[in-house]
């Protein structure tokens, strides 16, 4: 079994020029989104540089061009929607994630020590989280949590590989989804829409 010759799964969703009347506006919006991403990245890099070289003001002769280059490289990446995170949600999510990662590590260690108890399989999961950031965070967090691993993302269908196919895994997934919804301040009504 090799992993060559994989058929492409993702279709790039680019708005075509003929069907989209507001192509011009969209293009501007998209480019401004990229600019915002670049500025955010540059700011973060400046903060990081300040953290590394706080005791040496002359270091900014390299630091500022570096932040500009880092921001410029991000211009290649497609923009995503601005984040609307709730600070309290972030703290709660951080606590949840740290506990989850540790539990995941203990869980997989246990399985490595006694692989006979293992019953791996796939779980299809339809997520209500909106496209973009929340859904990607969901996919990443699934992989870090005990016994689950995102194997495929197709629109709102995720295929998850699980070491344990019981209901407990599904409950954990639902709990994680609720946590992420709270983090992004999405209430249930919005998510169904």
């Amino acid at each position, binding site marked *: 079994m090799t992993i060559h010759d*994989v058929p*492409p*799964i*993702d279709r790039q969703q680019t708005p075509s020029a003929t069907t989209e009347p507001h192509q011009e506006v969209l293009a501007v919006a998209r480019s401004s989104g990229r600019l915002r*991403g670049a500025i955010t*990245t540059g700011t*973060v*890099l400046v903060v*990081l*540089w300040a953290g*590394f*070289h706080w005791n040496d003001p002359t*270091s900014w*002769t*390299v*630091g500022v*061009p*570096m*932040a500009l*280059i*880092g*921001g410029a*490289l*991000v211009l*290649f*990446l*497609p923009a*995503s929607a601005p984040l609307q995170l709730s600070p309290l949600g972030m703290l709660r999510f951080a606590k949840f994630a740290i506990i989850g990662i540790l539990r995941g590590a203990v869980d997989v260690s246990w399985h490595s020590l006694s692989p006979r108890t293992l019953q791996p399989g796939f779980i299809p999961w339809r997520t209500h989280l909106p496209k973009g950031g929340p*859904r*990607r*965070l969901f*996919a*990443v967090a699934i992989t870090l949590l005990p016994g689950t691993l*995102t194997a495929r*993302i197709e629109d709102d269908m995720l295929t998850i590989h699980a070491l344990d196919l019981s209901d407990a895994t599904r409950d954990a997934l639902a709990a994680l989804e609720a946590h992420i919804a709270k983090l992004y301040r999405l209430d249930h009504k919005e998510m169904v829409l």
Partner: protein
Amino acid sequence: MSLAFDILLAFGVVFTAAAALGTHDRVASIAGFVVTGLLVALSLVRLGAPDVALAEAAIGAGLTGALLLRSAWRLKPAESRVSPAIDRIIVALIAVCLSGALAWAVYTAPGAALYPALVSERLAESGVTNPVTAVLLNFRAWDTLLEIAVLFVALILVRIVAPAHPQPVVLGELMLPFARIVVPMCAFLAGHLLWQGASVPGGAFQAGAILAGGLLVLMLGGFAVLTPRLLSWGMMVALLGLAVFAVAALSTEALTGTLLLYPDGAAKIWILMIEAVLTLSIAAMLCLLFCGMPRRPLNDV
């Protein structure tokens, strides 16, 4: 305990190298080679050469691996004509003798440490406190200039031969968060290594290699496509390093009467400027060496 560490590490280096060279599975050889590079970098740290270790990690384990993977599927495996056993035994004997002689020669060579005294004596006037950077860009800057020229010649050779463009697979949605963090991180680390190369391990070569790694992520993730315009920009940046270094050499000749002897007290500024341009240029060169610069289609000319 640290002796046991060294023995295990040395064993690991030889073991992974043997694994890389001993198999005909492409992925196994290249993965083995990458791991060898990592372990070699670790042993260079143990040998007290962190500057070299950083370069080996960035280039030997990162970029060479990507380069080999690019070519791995294009080069057909040679016809499996096994050389006769007697030949292999003879070659193995010669190899063992060679290793043994080499180890003996290096171990018993008189340790006439000539350079360290000279370097530390004149370190103060080099403008930097990291001796390796001082050697590279001050005492032996002429060598470094020629080495950049060698890099550029290799680039021109690749441009003439024009291997096909690497075509990464479509990697899906999770590439975006990865690239969004790793690419700026590469730029940050490049700047960090460049700046601190003056006093502690780091410098233009390592920084350039890491920046090239960031560009590689953009290419492999399918975010940046090498258009002819991007290509010509890349070539220009690549040439810029050589040009700025050469101009600096000539202007030091004009200012001080000696090639690459920096004016008094200003050595650090000169070195930092040259290094900054070299970083960008090395990154562009390594990236173009990976991409292979395909010829344009005829109707495009």
